[in-house]
């Protein structure tokens, strides 16, 4: 419980920074921090495998991808970053605050939240692997096809339009 009490405000502060900060690179780095704290949360909840996968995939790949794209799409050295108060803040708050209210209402009405399960609930890696490839095998195959399609699609998107792959003919 105590690690949860320490982690929750940190995660929320980092997420708030990711949502609110004006400079894009700061927001992206705060997203990386949020994801890393999330991974630590999973480790605290004894989901070891998922926590380490979160580190590897989200912090190591997705966050890096986002900061890389921010570098490529920089507005240029002389342009300033986007202004602090977004124009549609009122609309945004009007749409998201009701969602928050409904979710918190459901959480407060949740009666079984009282039992803290005593066992550590840690799962061995063999169990995880066996369950993944027997019970959830069709899902694994579907995700494999999806990821291959995504890789090919992203590579096609990223090509320079109108040119074949460049071969350096001379230095």
């Amino acid at each position: 419980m105590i690690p949860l009490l320490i982690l929750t405000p940190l995660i929320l502060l980092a997420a708030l920074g990711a949502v609110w900060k004006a400079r894009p690179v700061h927001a992206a780095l705060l997203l990386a921090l949020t994801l890393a704290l999330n991974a630590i949360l999973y480790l605290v909840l004894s989901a070891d495998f998922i926590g380490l996968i979160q580190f590897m995939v989200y912090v190591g790949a997705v966050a890096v991808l986002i900061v890389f794209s921010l570098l490529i799409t920089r507005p240029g050295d002389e342009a300033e970053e986007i202004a602090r108060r977004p124009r549609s803040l009122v609309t945004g708050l009007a749409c998201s605050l009701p969602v928050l209210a409904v979710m918190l209402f459901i959480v407060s009405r949740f009666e079984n939240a009282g039992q803290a399960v005593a066992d550590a609930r840690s799962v061995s890696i063999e169990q995880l692997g066996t369950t993944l490839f027997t019970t959830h095998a069709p899902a694994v195959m579907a995700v494999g096809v999806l990821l291959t399609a995504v890789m090919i699609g992203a590579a096609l998107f990223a090509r320079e339009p109108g040119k074949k792959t460049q071969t350096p003919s001379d230095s």
Partner: protein
Amino acid sequence: MSLLAVQFAPFPQITREALPLLPKTLVEWLLAGFGAPEWLVLIAGFLVAAATVVGVFAGGFALLSLVERKTLARAQNRIGPNRAGWFGILQPVADGIKMLTKEDIVPAKAEKLLHLLAPIMIVVPSILALGVIPYGREWIPVPLELGLLFFFAVGAMTEVSIFMAGWASGSKFPMLGAMRAISQMVSYELPLMICALGVVMVSGTLSLPDIVDKQGGFHLGFIPAWNLFTPWGLVAGLLFYVCSIAEANRCPFDLPEGESEIVAGHMTEYSGFKYALFFMGEYLGLFAISGLGITLFLGGWQAPLPGLDFVPSWIWFFAKLCAVIFSFLWIRATFPRVRIDQLMRFAWLCMIPMALLTLPAAAIWHFTGRGFLSWVVTVPLLLIPWVIITVIYNKRLAPTLRTYHFAE
């Protein structure tokens, strides 16, 4: 805890295998003797074990900086540092004093907090990664069940910190160096993980001490059962070797920090102690990934011949580490730097297909009995695509004849 309550338990037996654990055993025995509570003995033991590992590898880093300069010098037909002590042995001390007493310059356009955090965030993952490698039969700092996954997870932290170092410096060369470094690290991390995946598949475990245990024993009486001496292991081991050079940003893959190209890449705007931290992080990362390669493919702390078990296992590990690091230095002295497009092409068009092929090769090797038949079946599966890839790769990218245009 009072000195009047001193009653020491008998000092535990220290075998040669457990010799590096001597500081930890000593501290725990002393504290328990003085009547310290359980948790204090435990925490003190952990701290001393961590300090041992960090101390050994920091000392190794200092020694390596000297050995590297001497080796490169000899390869280039000169002598290398020999002024700062007998054969230059005090050169690392001189370098350390120089780094520590230099002025710490931070550019005016730099982001102060990120600029400060970046070197720390590069050293921390390397030290964390050193904690899960089994150095000896009884010397493993943290025996994790998911050790290999932990290693790759902390490796992923390095990428974000290189970006922070490059971007927070606020100038063009670091930015360019950081972009190149990130693209290189991401591209070469894939074959690294796929090769490690082959080892995990055959060993059936993610825990590094268990992977080393499974490589015990000898074929035909004298060939060690290391993963390198299997058909898929040979290919996967070589790919892992090349990828670890790329991951550690060493020549021929040191484009992110090539001195003749972009000054020092993401480390350009750093001086003094922060630069020393970058340097240390890079070399500790090199130790970590070489240690992982030795654990996965070269049998970790296993002895190479049947009769040599009397030598303690950690000596074998460090001997293999020295051999691998020496080969890295040799390669640095020999090869020119690759260009960024050659680098990307090599990773995506040559290494990833070969790495992916090692997976079915490992599976076939396992299911055909791991004997002579497995070799016969698996070697063509790996050799023919390799020949096709290298022939195609070489034909398409061979440089055409240069035409020189001179001003008339």
